[in-house]
């Protein structure tokens, strides 16, 4: 009797998860429906964003989301793998714990605190030192990638802050999969006369590859949906620009930034439609990431 009730109750709690996910999908799409209905799929390819004439398109936000996440991954991935290799293979015992703790702590800092630090410390630093370095010292000011005025809030700032934020996620997953690589793989490499680095590069990392890629994609999922820190440093301009120094938008930052200002129903609905797009993208990215990490777990058993 009690056993059956217990089983039903825990099953009920567990079923909350799929129900919740379904409700989220329904509410996000129904909120964005008026805009999706009016503009169709063209909503995601149009660059218009004209609240006065009620014309909306999400292309610049999608572009900004992809670019800022790409910058973040380009910076964070090698660092994160380096940290993970360091912690799992080379770190002396006495630094392993503290460094692992500090890196984990990076993941615990609230987004808004990153944003605060970003806008009051990182952005001024980029404006005074990094941007002039590219423009004047390296004479790259005329190339499209570094063109335009260096205000500070920019795609570069967003990418940099995102890199710091996703690094702990990538390194945590990488560390886990590195630990799952069997000793025998390492010993086999060493027995063939490999140096310690060759053991890592030729035996351990290839073995852990799909798990590491899964971790990177998991980091990508974080970067795509990160809101507050990006909203505070990206400059919030609805424009597609090749320049890293130009301000821009991401999907999440556009929603957060304009939500309180949006007055017409269609404007609000357009923001929600951007949210629906973000929902679909992050679900796909997460499914791929989980699948890769899961496959790594299965390989290790075989």
């Amino acid at each position, binding site marked *: 009797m*009690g*056993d059956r009730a*217990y089983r039903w109750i*825990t*099953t009920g*709690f*567990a079923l*909350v*998860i*799929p129900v919740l996910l379904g*409700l*989220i999908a329904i*509410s*996000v799409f*129904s*909120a964005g429906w008026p805009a999706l209905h009016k503009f169709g799929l063209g909503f995601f390819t149009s660059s218009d964003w004209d609240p006065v004439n009620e014309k909306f398109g999400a292309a610049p936000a999608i572009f900004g989301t992809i670019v800022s996440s790409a910058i973040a991954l380009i910076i964070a991935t090698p*660092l994160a793998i*380096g*940290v993970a290799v*360091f*912690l799992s*293979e*080379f770190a002396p015992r006495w630094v392993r714990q503290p*460094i692992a703790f*500090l*890196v984990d*702590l*990076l993941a615990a*800092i*609230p*987004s*808004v*605190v990153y*944003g*605060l*630090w970003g*806008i*009051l410390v990182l952005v001024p630093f980029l404006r005074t030192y990094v941007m002039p370095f590219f423009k004047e010292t390296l004479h790259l000011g005329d190339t499209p990638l570094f063109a335009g005025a260096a205000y500070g809030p920019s795609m570069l700032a967003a990418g940099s802050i995102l890199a*710091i934020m996703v690094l702990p996620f990538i390194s945590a997953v990488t560390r886990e999969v590195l630990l799952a690589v069997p000793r025998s793989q390492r010993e086999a490499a060493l027995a063939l006369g490999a*140096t310690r*680095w*060759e053991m890592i*590069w030729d035996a351990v990392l290839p073995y852990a590859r799909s798990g590491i890629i899964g971790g990177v994609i*998991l980091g990508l999922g*974080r970067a*795509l*949906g990160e*809101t*507050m820190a990006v909203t*505070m440093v990206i400059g919030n301009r609805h424009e597609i620009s090749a320049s890293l120094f130009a301000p821009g938008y991401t999907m*999440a930052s556009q*929603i957060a930034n304009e*939500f309180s200002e949006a007055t017409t129903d269609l404007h609000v609905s357009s923001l929600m439609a951007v*949210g629906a797009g*973000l*929902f679909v993208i*992050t*679900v796909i990215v*997460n499914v791929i990431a*989980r699948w890769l990490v899961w496959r790594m777990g299965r390989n290790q058993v075989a």
Partner: protein
Amino acid sequence: MLATSTARTLARRRVKSFIMIALTYVAALIATLPLLLILWHLAAQGASSVNWNFFTKMPAPAGEAGGGMANAIVGTGMLVLIASAIGLPIGVGAGLFLAEQRGAKLATAIRFLSDVLNGLPSIVMGIFAWQLLVRPFKHFSALAGGIALGAMMIPLVTRTTEEMIRLVPVSMREAALALGYTKWRTSLSVVLRTALPGIVTGALVAVARIAGETAPLIFTALGNQFWSVSPTQPIAALPMQIYTYALAPYDDWHAQAWAGALVLIGLVLIISLIARYVTRSRFGLGGD
């Protein structure tokens, strides 16, 4: 001839190995640098404004120095309470289910969906709560904010609960069954109790994470310049206040934002340290 050339390549390989290993040390250094910088800036900029007034006074109007964030601190407490009331029981229950139905297809599917839920951006949670709980009632509320945060807690708590329960040896479960315990009683008073320190740790980590969330609150709790603890009214929250102040052009408000961030980080750190202490202090099993 052969011997010298292999000796030379070996030397080169050794040097390469040394350099690459050194680079991983550098990576570790670079990765920890931002954290140390952030903590340093928080302490340097925020410490002077963290005083008794900060915890007891209401926000000062723009242009006026001083004031505090009493309403935002209490508001964050309220939001965390509502979120925990929703996220903890559901998360623990779902975690029990996943741990006990390990091989079942339904469990595999739910575990996967829980991971997907965990990967959703917090802003999507905000839209969800806004559409279902704010829009129909035509006003923002602490309750909607708490529910959005609670939904974020569920996958976090589910995962740690499952992991911690799996750490409890099967023999413990069998010993209870052999004494004539029913299955539900075995699960709750022996297995869950044994896993409790680890689950508490996980719950604290989840609380620390949602306490600093801002994005969902823009759509739900909204923020409030005045004193309110009513669950049906908009409520102030520490991260919302930091956001507003950081973007404002006043130096006084920036100082308050730094102070708020310092307090928020302090809160997160204290919760993390308590979590570690809980894990370590109990005998037997834990998060290690």
